[in-house]
């Protein structure tokens, strides 16, 4: 009754194309942003930041990145972990080489470096498609991780082979390093997540987004109506890798503080992000957030119930988590290939008619 578009007339094409065409959605969105920026930082503690919110925001960025490539441009990638490693090691090298440059700029540059690497590994997509390409992206995954493990230059010849984030500050607040507060970590990731989600939304509703979707839905027809597959696919790889690289840089510098390539950025990370995209919804920015939230919360939830409440061993909980995640992936692909985002949309469509469904 209250949630509807009737009477909410648009008088220009500009208004019609906006992100939240329904007024109530717009308000809800502003309210969430206000709470996220103004309330949460005041109440957040380090458990919530480290176990839930910070990983959620970082994985959401990575999931948006992969969603651009897979959900919008239709190119499946299993190399996300490797590209996150590029972002992490790039920001590490930049942090140690240019201690004076603000960390936020370095993180963005690390994203740009990852974009270049992404384009390089995206080149085969011009010749191969579908799961051939998916398997080819495994080459990126394994090669990159191997590279960061074996070439000491990348980890500044440290004895442990690890990379450790030195302390860097913004406006007097520590953003990286051990002294960083929970709210500083959270706010840094939140700013990146909000800005990048907005950028992703803009890109996907405009002409480049249509090129990606055209390639995804029918690549031959897209080429015949004038889409250059080279630029369309490579731009998807570039933008996607940019996002993923920033996520990797944040994961290492802000969240973990220390990382080792095969542990933090292994093949399972690639699958984790892919699952977030599938569960959240292919081709949906909102879905990327939903999927990330789901897969970040699930282990926390299982741990609380199975380990803390029932007293089961942790490894058993981890195995059950594997089964649940696997089963959910299959379930979502069968029941709702468009994921949580689609379920949300259906709910809203019902709400629009409520309480007079006929």
């Amino acid at each position, binding site marked *: 009754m209250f949630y509807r578009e009737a009477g909410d007339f648009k008088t220009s094409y500009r208004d019609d194309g906006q992100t939240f065409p329904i007024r109530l959605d717009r308000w809800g969105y502003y309210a969430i942003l206000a709470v996220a920026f103004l309330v949460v930082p005041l109440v957040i503690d380090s458990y919530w930041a480290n176990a839930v919110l910070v990983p959620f925001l970082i994985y959401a960025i990575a999931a948006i990145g992969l969603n651009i490539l897979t959900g919008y441009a239709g190119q499946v990638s299993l190399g996300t972990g490797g590209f996150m490693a590029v972002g992490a090691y790039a920001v590490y090298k930049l942090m140690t080489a240019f201690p004076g440059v603000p960390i936020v700029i370095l993180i963005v540059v690390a994203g740009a470096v990852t974009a270049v690497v992404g384009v390089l590994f995206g080149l085969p997509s011009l010749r*191969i498609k579908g*799961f051939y390409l998916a398997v080819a992206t495994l*080459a990126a995954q394994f090669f990159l991780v191997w590279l960061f493990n074996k070439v000491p230059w990348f980890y500044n010849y440290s004895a442990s082979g690890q990379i450790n984030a030195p302390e860097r500050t913004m406006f007097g607040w520590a953003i990286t390093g051990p002294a960083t507060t929970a709210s500083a970590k959270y706010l840094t990731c939140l700013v990146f997540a909000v800005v990048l989600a907005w950028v992703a939304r803009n890109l996907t509703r405009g002409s480049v987004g249509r090129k990606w979707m055209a390639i995804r839905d029918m690549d031959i027809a897209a080429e015949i109506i004038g889409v250059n597959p080279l630029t369309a696919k490579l731009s998807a790889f570039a933008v996607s890798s940019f996002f993923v690289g920033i996520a990797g840089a944040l994961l290492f510098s802000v969240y973990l503080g220390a990382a080792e390539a095969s542990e933090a950025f292994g093949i399972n990370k690639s699958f984790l992000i892919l699952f977030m995209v599938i569960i959240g919804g292919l081709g949906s920015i909102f879905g990327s957030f939903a999927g990330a939230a789901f897969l970040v919360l699930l282990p926390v939830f299982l741990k609380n119930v199975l380990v803390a409440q029932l007293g089961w061993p942790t490894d058993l909980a981890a195995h059950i988590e594997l089964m649940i995640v696997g089963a959910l992936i299959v379930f979502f692909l069968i029941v709702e290939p468009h994921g949580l985002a689609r379920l949300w949309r259906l709910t809203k469509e019902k709400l629009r008619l409520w309480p007079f469904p006929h």
Partner: protein
Amino acid sequence: MEFLYASEVLVNGLMAGVMYSLVALGFVLIYKASGVFNYAQGVMALFAAMTLVGIMEGRVPFAHLINAAFGTHVSSFGWTVPALLGIALTALVMVGLAIAIEKLVLKHLVGQEPIILFMATIGLAWFLEGLGDVMWGADVKTLDVGLPQGISETAETLTNDWLGYGFFIDRLDIWAAVIAALLVAALVGFSQYTKQGRAMRAVADDHQAALSVGISLQFIWIMVWSIAGFVALVAGIMWGTKSGVQFSLSLIALKALPVLMLGGFTSIPGAIVGGLIIGMGEKLFEYFVGPLVGGATENWFAYVLALLFLVFRPQGLFGERIIERV
């Protein structure tokens, strides 16, 4: 002498390649018959090996879970099962698994895009991995079904007599090669000369047409997944005997992917030749180039090779040429 060292590396690579071929074969079978690119093939091998160990050692399935839930301390039935019976029982479990997969997963995904099916099998892989761990525990298990192991003295003496240099070849590798060859021969015979085999090829060619002449898709799929389960069991036995039954076993599945890219997804000879090329290639590359770049190139060599190869020949060595139409 340098040449002989390299040849030894080559022969050992060939043996590893046989193993890759074995896993790749499972992929090809399923792909040909159902158009599903089964990422879970490697985890199926792991699961089969775990089940085999569990049955042979008389472990109680889900012991871990039962103990946690009810506070009991069950772990073993207290008996052991001979290898052959164990293999037969495991094969039955794999058939059951095939039926479950068909009923619970595949049936609901008919007509979906290949990439969706592929992602579903990734989910399946995670599920099976978790299930295996919950059923049998995640410890590294040793598997011994009585296959001969250790360095083959015959091979060493023979090569020593011939070449003046004794090759070190694991007897298990030789056995694996022989068994793989037999398995391939049996499968080719099956698909060429039996009614079910013909039906299977018909389904591979065109689902709709096969349905219209009265072939039961459901039956074929269960059959193919069962065969793939059996192939996975054989692969699991080989790899499990060689390096223990543990998670890394499922990673051979990943190694089988570049094998398939080289060989083409639809070709049984392709799977075999691709496996041999990758097996030899990665061992030789590690031998010659590995020391220069810090080693462990086996982690990525196969993928990069397949990637470069695909860019120049997208359909693989033996795959059918793709003609695009509008």
